[in-house]
């Protein structure tokens, strides 16, 4: 009676039945892996070469500026990470920045997702909030920093605020998009059995939203690092020095290699967040989510 399943006497699926995993062929997979491992180092190599060239003669040739403004990549690595003093300063800075951006991000995630859930409940709620979300996104952060400064003073709180402002939009929009992504037929199922709003939210909309939610997390995680660093540049007092402050103090002393070292560490932090949330997302939805056909 049955076409495929369970025909193996031990409850095992014989090979070659319709039960086989749908996925890329081994060959396609291998090619993909190869390009994954070879591509990035090549680009890095080219990048470092151009950087070195700019240091040696490019800065003078193209911009008529001294080469020390762009130290050689080898100097940068050596000065920033080869000496205990600078290394500790930079690493402590990036640690503190990580803490600030994680606190900011957590806060943003909680508030942003709550807002998205509210907006997903009714068309009018979405319409009411959306313009202000866009406005928030469009506000030039630097322009309102003086206001934030006068409201919150210096210290941790205003940094978190800047962090949240920058990271908020992707969380809300991606969560909202995700909550609305359950298809009409799936909603009909819930309607048939008279499911209430709460059941629909927990058993349908939230799980359907997860892939988009993790996309939002990934984008916002990177932004929250930027937010934390921008925040540090403006609110120097009252809190431990993050990577932004460490970089700024090196710049004021015209010690450029460590400034670039700080930039590298700051980006590394953003990349780490991106990778961690990407990994977390794959852990949570990788089993069932088909990435193809949706971005």
């Amino acid at each position, binding site marked *: 009676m*049955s076409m495929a399943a369970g025909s193996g006497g031990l409850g095992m699926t014989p090979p070659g039945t319709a039960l086989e995993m749908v996925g890329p062929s081994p060959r396609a997979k291998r090619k993909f892996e190869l390009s994954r491992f070879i591509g990035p180092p090549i680009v890095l190599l080219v990048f470092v070469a151009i950087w070195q060239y700019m240091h040696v003669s490019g800065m003078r040739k193209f911009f008529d500026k001294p080469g020390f403004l762009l130290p050689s990549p080898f100097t940068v690595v050596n000065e920033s990470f080869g000496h205990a003093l600078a290394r500790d300063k930079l690493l402590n800075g990036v640690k503190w920045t990580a803490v600030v951006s994680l606190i900011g991000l957590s806060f943003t995630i909680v508030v942003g997702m709550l807002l998205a859930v509210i907006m997903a409940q009714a068309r009018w709620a979405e319409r009411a909030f959306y313009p202000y979300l866009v406005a928030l996104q469009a506000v030039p952060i630097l322009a309102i920093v003086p206001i934030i400064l006068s409201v919150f003073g210096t210290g941790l709180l205003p940094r978190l605020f800047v962090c949240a402002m920058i990271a908020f939009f992707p969380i809300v929009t991606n969560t909202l998009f995700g909550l609305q992504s359950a298809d009409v037929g799936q909603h009909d*199922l819930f309607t048939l059995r008279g499911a209430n709003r709460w059941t629909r939210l927990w058993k349908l909309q939230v799980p359907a939203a997860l892939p988009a939610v993790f996309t939002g997390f990934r984008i916002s995680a990177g932004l929250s690092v930027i937010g934390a660093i921008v925040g540090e540049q403006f609110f120097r007092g009252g809190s431990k020095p993050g990577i932004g402050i460490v970089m700024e103090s090196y710049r004021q002393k015209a010690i450029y290699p460590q400034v670039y070292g700080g930039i590298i560490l700051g980006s590394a932090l953003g990349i780490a967040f991106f990778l961690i949330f990407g990994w977390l997302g794959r852990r949570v939805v990788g089993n069932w989510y088909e990435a193809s056909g949706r971005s």
Partner: protein
Amino acid sequence: MTATSTPLQRSGAPALRFSNVSMVFPDGTHALAETSFDVFPGEFVTVVGPSGCGKSTLLRIASGLNPATSGSVTVDRSSLGYVFQDATLLQWRNVLRNVELMAELEGIPKAERRKRAQAAIDLVGLTGAEGKFPKQLSGGMKMRASLARSLVLDPSVFLFDEPFGAVDEITRERLNDEVISLFQRNGFAGLFITHSISEAVFLSTRVLVMSARPGHIVADFNVPFDYPRSPELRFDPAFAELSGRISHELRGAHS
């Protein structure tokens, strides 16, 4: 013309009754006009008609997903089975948990619904695939899971909205066999929508032909073949003759 039911071993109250049901959508589309017919327990009624004639609307009204503009539907919705055109499985649930869904929404305790889900899975031939996610299933297997999901409530009325339109011919015939064996086993009242005449004749005790929009029933055929029906029935001269008559009505319905 509305349905003139020709009773054939029917008894008691109909499981599903459409009385003068009309449907006009907010955009002005006149989908159904004064449609009346009954589906009795133990009957398998298939509606065929040109596409866009309001066949699916019948099911949406029967299930309560859409209210009719006028007229009434009498049906017990407490254990309604409804198989959609798409399998509409929840991507994040494996087969077992998808099949449990309707029972879960109904508030049936976990142990009980798991037992029922397993039984339904075995019945549709998905044993061994309980842990698979929808993306790992073929089209036919998705439809089986979708069938099983409705079976868990042991429906007395079973609605099918062109469920096998998207699967290949062989799979479709196999799924038709399964629907027939479920029908024989569970004795629900079935209302099936399709645009395939051969599928309609093969499955049903009765075939209704619907006109183009606004849809209404223009012909009502009894299908005299005994169950269980073997695949060879499709090549029986009587089968062809009946299909021909339905096809003729259907062509009339288009104009």
